[in-house]
């Protein structure tokens, strides 16, 4: 058991280092601005004095490494400074929106994961059947469509032509959960369509890979019934790839959320990021990017750790 702990701690450390490097990239990218931040905010027409005053206010007169560590120290305790556009602390802007995005992502994931795994396993078991072929074409179509295409189709048919669900998913705090679920259904369904397609294809590939292994053939040859081959021989080894697939797709979900939020005017962190990019509100952009990157790394880490925990060969490396 000690070994496992050691491996996991090692992976966590690696993830932390990656996050640190990414924070340097995110911070450093803004340093690459032609001119500097103060110039970029005020524009070319600003006088020398106002730019100097702005520099003072933003602390740009200090060297970059000093500012980086100050920024990082703030980021660790959740203080990203103030928004340039509105002057509100970035954390206040991000906090409730991050909760909304998480709500949407979890909602979509709860619907998508069981459906995708079930369909993926079925497609793998009955491969090259009608079901498998139709599923292949449908998932390929769903993967290839931009999120906004799927989103607007759903809006057209489920919100405009038949008013089953609202086309715009605005939320407020005093709504009941059922009301919220109803409002957020269309963006969640859009995400589900994309994620199910990805997840199902990956699950199918993983299971087919598994069913091709020699010990499955051995089990079949010695006359084990199909059901038992699946439950006793295939399934215990299928967990690792399936957990991997789920975590990777949840990571995908986190980024897919940006476009979907814009389509449905959903008050989430993706919408905030896009707005801030248009307004060139750098502290908010940096904070949003860091939050996205951290979530992404965390989920990839979860995929790693999950596959280690379920795979004895990785648990006890030679």
């Amino acid at each position: 058991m000690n070994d496992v702990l050691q491996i996991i701690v090692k992976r966590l450390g690696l993830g932390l280092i990656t996050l640190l490097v990414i924070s340097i990239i995110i911070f450093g990218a803004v340093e690459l601005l032609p001119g500097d931040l103060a110039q970029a905010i005020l524009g070319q027409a600003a006088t020398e004095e106002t730019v100097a005053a702005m520099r003072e206010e933003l602390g740009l007169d200090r060297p970059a490494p000093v500012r980086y560590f100050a920024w990082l120290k703030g980021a660790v305790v959740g203080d990203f400074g103030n928004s340039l556009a509105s002057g509100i602390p970035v954390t206040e802007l991000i906090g409730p929106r991050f909760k909304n995005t998480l709500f949407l992502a979890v909602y979509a994931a709860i619907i998508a994961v069981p459906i995708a795994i079930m369909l993926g396993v079925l497609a793998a078991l009955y491969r090259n059947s009608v079901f498998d072929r139709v599923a292949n074409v449908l998932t390929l179509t769903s993967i290839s469509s931009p999120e906004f295409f799927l989103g607007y189709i759903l809006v057209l048919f489920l919100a405009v032509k038949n008013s089953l669900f609202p086309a715009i998913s605005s939320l407020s705090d005093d709504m009941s959960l059922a009301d919220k679920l109803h409002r957020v259904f269309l963006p969640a369904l859009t995400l589900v369509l994309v994620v199910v397609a990805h997840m199902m294809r990956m699950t199918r590939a993983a299971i087919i890979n598994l069913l091709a292994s020699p010990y499955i053939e051995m089990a079949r040859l010695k006359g084990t019934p199909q059901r038992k081959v699946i439950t006793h021989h295939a399934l215990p080894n299928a967990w690792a790839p399936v957990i991997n697939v789920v975590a990777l797709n949840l990571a995908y979900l986190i980024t897919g959320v940006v476009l979907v939020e814009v389509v449905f005017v959903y008050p989430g962190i993706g919408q905030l990021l896009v707005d801030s990019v248009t307004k060139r509100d750098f502290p908010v952009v940096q904070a949003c990017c860091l939050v996205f990157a951290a979530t992404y790394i965390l989920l990839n880490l979860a995929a790693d750790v999950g596959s280690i925990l379920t795979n004895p060969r990785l648990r006890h490396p030679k």
Partner: protein
Amino acid sequence: MSPFIVGYYALLIGATCVAAYFKNRTAFLLLFSLMLASFVVGLVGGERALWTITVVAALIAAAAGIAFTFREFLTISLKGEAQKAIKSAPLTATFGLFMIMIYIIAAVFAPIIAPFGEAEVVGSSFAPADEVMLLGGDQLGRDMFSRLVYGARNTVGIALLTTCLAFLMGTTLGLLAAVKGGWFDQILARSVDVLMSIPTLVFSLLLLSIFGTNTSTLVIVIAIIYVPPVFRLARAVAGNIVVMDYIEAARLRGEHSWHLIVREILPNASAPLIAEFGLRFCFVFLLISGLSFLGLGLQPPTADWGSMVKENATLISFGEVTPLIPAGAIALLTVSINFVVDWMLYRSSGLKT
């Protein structure tokens, strides 16, 4: 009950019986499940829903017909190895090839095909479709159809350029890393690991917010973002090849690493790299369209499918399909490419499971 519903079910039941009589299991299962679905959909949505199903089925049939005739055409006009490959291709793949051809024609001959200029104001804003404007007007009264055709040139052209750039950098670095090995390889591989742990859309938003959104920065930024995955694949593919004996022989001959890459490795790595090129193109294309949709990609008045969706998005709340047309154009191209790549991967893997 209207004659349409009676006719609909009569045709469906008849076709199912024919399929059962000829013991065609695939067709029977498809038709039967379609019939069951129709019962449910018909009960819920009424006649209109059944019409929708009919239209969709007719579209699929038309697509299959096009794919079939195109495959026959290619089998007749091609010779040798290519003919053999096409003959066994699934209909989805030939459909993909056909659609890609249409897009290329639209992109190359855009000024001839389009009745109006890219930014030419023809009618009133959001004008309905008529003989002059085949698909109606957009929010400024420009011809939707002309812009769609020019969009093939702009959106696809930019995506192609970006993918080529990413591939040039990615494969060169990847193959060099595989050939050189050692610290050069290690440093590149580690930095790629880090770069790949930032979600692409978020990373591109960050970079575009800094460098501004003109076409050349867009191309460069997205190309750089897509270098890591290409690098990884190229390095993995080449990693399997550099251990071969003929590479060893070439090394002993004293060949330069450039010669190794171009003459020895590249010809043997081309199949997976071409398939990867198709897939990567789809990702780049979707990313650029997504950015344009967010208003951060190609800037107006350039006709571009992503921004066309955004500009006309308000129409959707009046039940108009106009904004779906450019979005559909994006989807159709990526689907077509994916169909072709799927078939190529299947062929090159030799998997006959």
